[in-house]
């Protein structure tokens, strides 16, 4: 039985976290830990990589595995180098929507395209929270943020659909309301040979909540009521891609073997 005490003793470097009260990032940390524990993977075989943003702090400094806290937007590129250099490692990237699709969008596309065997967990709160609630590529049309005070004139990106189209082996979307589904999904993603991507809609009570005039409980309720497997667009949750296909590090190893023979 995984209890809070067991988690704290085995997987968390230190607490309390720096996350705001009611922030979903702590829940996602909880979910990642439970998935790792269910899989019974040795912690030394896991590497966590993150960029800049609130969600980048989920692995660094809280998750007790080797962690690389990198520059804004680049964790997927760092993770690709780490994975290719040591394919034995299970490399998990935790990134925000701004980090993964704004400044780092190109890396996300190419990691999915090359099907490198890393796992990206993208925490989507629909804006840039750490820097003060600015508009992100995931902010809905007409939504108010601190840099779209009159509403967002642009349109939002359905990230999971883009990553699926780019060639990922596993793509799923959940919310912080769907904790059990999320944990099982993270387990599958970590064990998936190719590139795996999980989008987690998460509540940001501080900035998103202020703009939507909702607290974190109301946001969780909103997730529960509106995000369903039979919903449309961004509200559709579930596993979108779950396939097996050749993976980059394996293909590289095969090529090296062929060349050296």
């Amino acid at each position, binding site marked *: 039985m995984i209890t809070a005490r067991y988690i704290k003793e085995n997987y968390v470097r230190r607490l309390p976290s720096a996350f705001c009260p009611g922030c979903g990032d702590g829940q996602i940390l909880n979910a990642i830990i439970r998935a790792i524990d269910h899989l019974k993977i040795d912690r030394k075989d896991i590497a966590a990589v993150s960029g800049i943003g609130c969600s980048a702090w989920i692995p660094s400094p809280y998750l007790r595995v080797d962690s*690389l806290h990198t520059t804004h937007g680049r964790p997927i590129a760092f993770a690709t*180098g780490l994975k290719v250099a040591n394919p034995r490692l299970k490399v998990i990237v935790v990134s925000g929507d701004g980090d993964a699709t704004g400044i780092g969008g190109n890396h996300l596309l190419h990691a999915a395209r090359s099907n490198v065997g890393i796992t990206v967990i993208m925490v989507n709160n629909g804006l840039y929270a750490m820097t003060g609630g600015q508009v992100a590529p995931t902010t809905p049309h007409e939504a108010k943020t601190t840099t779209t005070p009159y509403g967002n004139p642009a349109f939002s990106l359905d990230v999971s659909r883009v990553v699926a189209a780019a060639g990922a082996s596993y793509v799923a979307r959940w919310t912080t309301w769907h904790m059990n589904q999320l944990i099982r999904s993270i387990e599958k993603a970590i064990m998936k040979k190719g590139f795996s991507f999980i989008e987690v809609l998460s509540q940001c009570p501080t900035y998103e909540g202020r703009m939507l005039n909702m607290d974190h409980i109301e946001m969780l309720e909103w997730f529960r009521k509106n995000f369903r497997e039979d919903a449309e667009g961004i509200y559709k949750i579930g596993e979108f891609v779950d396939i097996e296909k050749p993976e980059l590090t394996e293909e590289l190893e095969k090529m090296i073997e062929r060349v050296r023979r």
Partner: protein
Amino acid sequence: MINPGEYFVEGDVAAAYGAIRAGCLFFAGYPITPASEITQAMAELLPRVGGKFLQMEDEIASISAIIGASWAGLKSMTATSGPGFSLMQENIGYAAMTETPIVIIDVQRAGPAIGQASRPAQGDVMQSRFGSHGDYETIVLSPNSVQEMFDLTVKAFNLSEIYRVPVIILSDAEVGHMMERLVVPERIEIVNRKIASNFQETMAYGENLVSAMGRFGDGLELMITGSTHRPDGTRDTGTPEVQENLVRRLVNKIEKNRSSIEEWEELYTEDAEILVISHGASSRPSKGAVIRARKEGIRAGFLRPRVLWPSPERRMIELDSRVKRVILPEMSLRGYRMELERIFHRKVDHLPKVGGVVPTVDEIFTKIRSASL
């Protein structure tokens, strides 16, 4: 692979040979003139020694990937030219902050912006040292021949492994694309980083201010961050002493060890009144002009930093008292000039050439002769 013996190759390829002999096992790059030949050579050579080659989506991804690979324990390199080098600056600072050994080859071309893609220049001298934000130090090497593209690439890996810093090889389109004889020696000195066997070792700084490096996957539970951090990796951006101790050590580990890093070539300096200082491709005609000046009875001398940063400051100060004029032929309007004027405390006779061509022996000799009058 790359057996001892003689080769006839271009500079870019020699650098790739040097990397392979130095033990490089990971390369990530993005095509760019005039450095693509390094990338192509690494793509061909690395799999043959069991190494990994990746062509990434851009230069930012390339430097990110080699930093990641370095933490997996592999000697890693990328190669680029001006535009790509500019894109890499943020993560050069990241590598300095996280003390990640990596090697970056910048085969300089004429800028700014896209400039003359296939033409040589030396306009990245200051960027190679000051390009990323904040206080940090790198080591920058300046090869002037195909042989040195090989030798200094090996040296770059060794220095990066010893000091855990990004080491930059500042070449140029002339040296990168020229074909010359390359001699790969029988014995090559190779240095490998000290891998920490426990967490304590990652915080134990030696006399040279460097600690053993942890490796991902060894179970040390490393916490690596580009944020200001304590020796154990804990992020601490609020304590002034933590920032001060960290940044001072990052700078001092190069500054205090500079006598073992500096390297230069000199000729006729014992009694020189006119000192010609030059680096990279422009040092070749510079040396020729000094030899010609000597034949004509002019007391000219020649000094060429093979390590540009840190500069051979002490040696230059020694020469300062005897030397009347300092001439700097260079393919840049700025280049190394500010550094020399800082060291010599006087105006340097700069001989800049900015057309994307190497200065000629005649041009430099004319300058020496007029300075001697």
